[in-house]
């Protein structure tokens, strides 16, 4: 397990962060300027912090107490940058091979053919980066990082420079990376849906500090944290595909509760993650009748947190897992919501965006 502890003072900003990254995808989640990229750059060695220790077992990248500061090229990391940073003078194949030129001879490495196949970049191998689209560049960047025989993969908002269609194109590759490659991944994001789909572990960052860390469902379902703000709040449910229906809907089984979503391209029995955005959830004290919404999750209020504005976040525990609802304070008072009360959460099927549904390797 990677353990990171950093302290660095900038003019007007201090980074002071400690966290652990177990195997899988650890997402550093927070707003722009919260210090996420600084942390990743310190792990990569592109920034030398005032104090800190970064190590995984006896593999020590940085230990300022003992005067250890490994140079970036000795850290054996695969860094996927926001802007790709492919070498313009090399072909795609040479870009992919670049890291292998310097990797230690005996290092366990991915097979070039397998990576090319996984990322679907076979037809691009002879092109140069200038002739690639944004999404293609990012796929090559993923492959280049993977093929350098890294012990850890870093990704700094690798989708932020892409439009929605390209994001939808790349995100599944990161899911495959998480599910098919054993290298741990440290992933920076400020997008709630990316976090919900990818994260095994979430480390929430605010103002240069870690405000929460833990399994994704736990951190994202905690109304006290909301690292991306109340507007972006949303809990993550894990569900199993139960059946595909003729009317274009997929039925899921979420802890015994049926959930209906627009058609999901996964075989029955597959596990998936669904992010339910808090602002798409309606609460009702009675089980609603004569309602067009298909998904009704009975649950118990666990917490009601009024926000700064007119809104409030209600956390409820259902058989499917933790669900967050963003309602007005006025509604919360009219319903008399308080912890321990039984309510029903209502979610419109069509409000669940395709970008919020992903595969779940770890469960």
């Amino acid at each position, binding site marked *: 397990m990677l353990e990171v502890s950093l302290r660095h003072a900038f003019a007007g900003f201090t980074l002071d962060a400690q966290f652990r990254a177990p195997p899988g995808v650890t997402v550093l989640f927070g707003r722009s300027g919260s210090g996420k990229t600084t942390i990743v750059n310190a792990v990569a060695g592109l920034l030398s912090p005032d104090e800190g220790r970064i190590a995984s077992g006896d593999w020590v990248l940085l230990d300022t107490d003992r005067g250890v500061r490994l140079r970036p090229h000795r850290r054996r990391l695969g860094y996927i940058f926001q802007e790709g940073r492919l070498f*313009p003078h090399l072909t795609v194949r040479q870009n992919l091979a670049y890291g292998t030129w*310097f990797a230690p001879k005996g290092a366990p490495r991915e097979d070039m053919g397998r990576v090319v196949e996984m990322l679907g970049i076979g037809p691009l191998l002879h*092109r*140069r980066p200038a002739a690639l689209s944004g999404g293609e560049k990012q796929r090559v960047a993923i492959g280049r990082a993977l093929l350098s025989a890294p012990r850890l993969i870093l990704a700094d908002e690798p989708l932020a420079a892409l439009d929605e269609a390209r994001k939808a194109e790349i995100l599944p590759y990161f899911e495959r990376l998480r599910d098919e490659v054993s290298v741990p991944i440290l992933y920076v994001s400020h997008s709630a849906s990316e976090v919900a789909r990818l994260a095994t572990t979430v480390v929430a960052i605010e103002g240069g500090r870690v405000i929460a860390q833990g399994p994704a469902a736990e951190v994202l379902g905690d109304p006290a944290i909301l690292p991306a703000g109340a507007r972006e709040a949303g809990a993550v449910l894990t569900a199993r595909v139960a059946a595909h229906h003729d009317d274009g809907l997929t039925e899921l089984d979420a802890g015994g509760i049926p959930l209906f979503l627009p058609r999901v391209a996964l075989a029955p029995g597959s596990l998936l993650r669904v992010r339910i955005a808090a602002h798409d959830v309606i609460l009702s004290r009675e089980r609603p009748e004569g309602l067009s919404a298909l998904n009704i999750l009975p649950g118990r209020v666990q917490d009601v947190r009024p926000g700064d504005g007119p809104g409030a976040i209600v956390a409820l525990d259902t058989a499917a897992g933790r669900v967050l609802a963003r309602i007005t304070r006025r509604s919360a008072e009219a319903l008399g919501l308080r912890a321990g009360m039984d309510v029903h959460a209502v979610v419109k099927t069509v409000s669940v965006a395709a970008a919020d549904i992903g595969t779940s390797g770890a469960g």
Partner: protein
Amino acid sequence: MADWLSPAEWEAVRLSLRVAFWATLFTLPLGVFVAFALARWRFPGREALNILVHLPLIMPPVVTGYLLLLAFGARGPIGGFLDSAFGFTFAFRWTGAALASGVMAFPFMVRAVRLSIEAVDPRLEQAAATLGASRPWVFLTVTLPLILPGIIAGTVLAFAKGMGEFGATITFVSNIPGETRTIPLAIDLLLETPGGERAAARLAGLSILLAALALVLSEWVSRRVAARVGGR
């Protein structure tokens, strides 16, 4: 073809090519190094180095030649040391002409290379480092290929300067046939000799031809390199 120029004129052409070749050969690695230092490193004396490099561009060439004579002449501190330690002389030799040409060409080389280094995105070099490349490897595999067009441009400029240098050369190593009489020095002498105008015109025409050739060649090479680097 061979009798188109007199033996003395051929000698001036050969000498010019030799002087320009050696001046360029020594200017190239040193120029790339200084350009890299000025573009990327922050060190005390950086501004002084920048001024020193540019002085030959701004000073009258005669002054540069005079300073070279003071330092590298037979009785100069550096010239005297090289002579007594290695038996190597610049004064009144073609090597001195090459030195003068190299010094005069240096700022052109440094400026061309420095501009191209400043155009290289340092984030690409960081990416190379994260992929396991040490500093020298980053330079060889990323920086150098990307600045190749600038290096070619600088080389052509330095070579052309070496072919045409006059003021510093004649001041430093005088006008000695077969040793320091390059094309421009030969032209200068011919123009002062009664009946030398035709020969001067021939050499002048040849200079123009060589310069044009060098330019065409460098344009062609740098277009090819730029196409590779730009990925089209």
